[in-house]
């Protein structure tokens, strides 16, 4: 079942005294429920812009983006915000946990924007999710008291508390050492798989990208499928992306 579909998506920025800047050029991508897709690309290749579009944070200049079969250009800003809260979970490179709040409070944050049972049972849901990522014993710890891996696991719990159908992981292991990064990715893959959510990992780490089932490369705004062996070859130090 198709969850997200990009069709000929472009994103262009008008510059005051220069030619328009074409950040994305004719991007086509289909992501189904339960999919695991990786997108690799250098800095400046348009990854952030693509992330904005995939996360319903921006509209394309041309082309169509359908989320759950619905054109996002037909949705109001509020509808997009609500759909994002309900169906999209973000995981960031720098974890982006909120300071001054415990792991539990951080995990509860998305549930503040939920309604009904999810809102009123937010503490219990967040605790269950922390338990699932193996951090129930650190629920009352502040972010600065947690290791990098633990912080990213809290971020994963936070991304998953509302049961999103799409998880967007933006350089999820970028701030972790190789071993911790691998364990965090394994956890993310397992949790996403068991919840049936689609996982899109945007990274420049070929090893992390290789964990996905489908692989794409973003180069100068053009998104193209790439073979897993090619991705792994790209992971060798002497080869550049």
């Amino acid at each position, binding site marked *: 079942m198709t969850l997200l579909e990009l069709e000929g998506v472009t994103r262009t920025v008008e510059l005051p005294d220069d030619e328009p800047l074409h950040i994305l050029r004719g991007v086509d991508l289909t992501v189904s429920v339960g999919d695991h897709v990786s997108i690799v690309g250098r800095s400046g290749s348009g990854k952030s812009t693509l992330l904005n579009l995939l*996360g319903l944070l921006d509209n394309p200049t041309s082309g169509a983006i359908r989320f759950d079969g619905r054109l996002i250009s037909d949705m109001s800003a*509020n509808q997009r915000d609500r759909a*994002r809260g309900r169906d999209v979970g973000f995981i*960031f490179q720098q974890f982006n946990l909120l300071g*001054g709040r415990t792991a539990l409070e951080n995990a509860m944050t998305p549930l*503040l*924007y939920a*309604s009904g049972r999810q*809102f009123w049972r937010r503490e219990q849901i967040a605790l269950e999710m922390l338990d699932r990522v193996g951090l129930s014993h650190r629920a009352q710890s502040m972010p600065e008291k947690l290791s990098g891996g633990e912080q990213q696991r809290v971020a994963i719990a*936070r991304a998953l508390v509302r049961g999103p159908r799409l998880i967007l992981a933006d350089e999820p292991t970028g701030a972790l050492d190789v071993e911790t990064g691998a364990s965090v990715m394994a956890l993310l893959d397992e949790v996403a798989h068991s919840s049936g959510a689609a996982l899109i990992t945007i990274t420049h780490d070929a090893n992390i990208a290789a964990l996905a089932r489908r692989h794409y490369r973003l180069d100068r705004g053009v998104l193209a499928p790439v073979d897993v062996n090619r991705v792994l070859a790209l992971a060798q130090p002497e080869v550049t992306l």
Partner: protein
Amino acid sequence: MTGIVGAFVEAWSEIRIHRTRVLLSLIGVAVAVAALTSVVGLGAITQQATTENYERQSGRPATLFVSAYNPTTGATPDAKTLSTAFLTVTDRYSVDWTTRSTYAQVSVDFTEGLTPVDTMVVDVDYGTMHRVQMLTGSWFTAGDEQRLAPALVVNETVWKRLGSPDLRTHPTVTIQGADPVTAVIVGVTPDPPYSQGYATMFMLYDSYMAIAAPAQVQSLYPQFEAWVPTDIAEDLTGLIQRDIAGALGDGWQVDVNRQDYLVYQGEDPLLSIKLLVGGVAVLVLLLGALGLVNISLVTVRQRIREIGIRRSFGATAGRVFFAVMMESVVAAAAAGVVGVFIAVLVVKNPMVVGFIAQGITDVPAFPLEAALIGLGAATFVGALAGLLPALVAVRVKVIDAIRY
């Protein structure tokens, strides 16, 4: 419903986490609210004190003063005739509060000899109509008019010269009328500030008439006052004038007019003072608001990443706007409560009350309007101070903010 509760939860959580910053930023608001509320509260007491002072001098609104004279000769009707006419007419219109008043000198036999004491000769109602304040004992009652030994209400100076006797022992003095008479002191009034040592007293009109020498009665020129509801004062003025003129007969000009403070100064004699003090308080509040806006703006800029994260988890622009506004409103309202509390402590402080409300008989309770104005002003300032940061917050570009 969950949206509103969620916004409150967010706002409270934000305030709790940044309590030091919030506390510092709100000191100005709390102080300003305390100042504003204190000013309004003290203003109410001052107004009451001023009003009572006015009422002591010229009666409560609306007090009608009645006088009569012969326009040709300038002569006045004798006190007894005018008094009878006044009492008959006021009784006819069911005026509950009336008094006659005049000044006389009565010699009192103190231990050091006879001393003339300025005496105000009045009716029982005078005490209420002119808010006469008692130091000890009580004002005249209707029963005092029947006493064979006239009742006296003396001032503090007279009372002290008599050795400050306990009024429960019914202390007496000898006064000189046509003949020496023993009078009973029933009450003592406090000396007004800056006039200690000057002996004065009150005596009931009929009691004085009973003991006064004929020559003293002849020289009396009493005033006649009626305290009537303000809404019918104008109608009663015409009726009382007409009826007393009719009772006195041809040749007498009867004047009935109001002399209470309201008739001279409109509805609110303290309006100009209130406006001045209120203006200063509003200025203080605006300065507090400016500080709050400043700190809130800086804080929001520091929180751009957090706002971006919240947006990425589904917070709508409206929700972010409301949450940032609520932080400011909730915090300022809390500061308002503290400010009002401080104001109550200041306004109800015995030293402050003693200073501001000197001589006041009805010390007003802390005015509810002052508390409401304080809280309302704090909430308004909170909303005002939250507006700019909230606008900045909704313009945050989510991914840029997160990657910032």
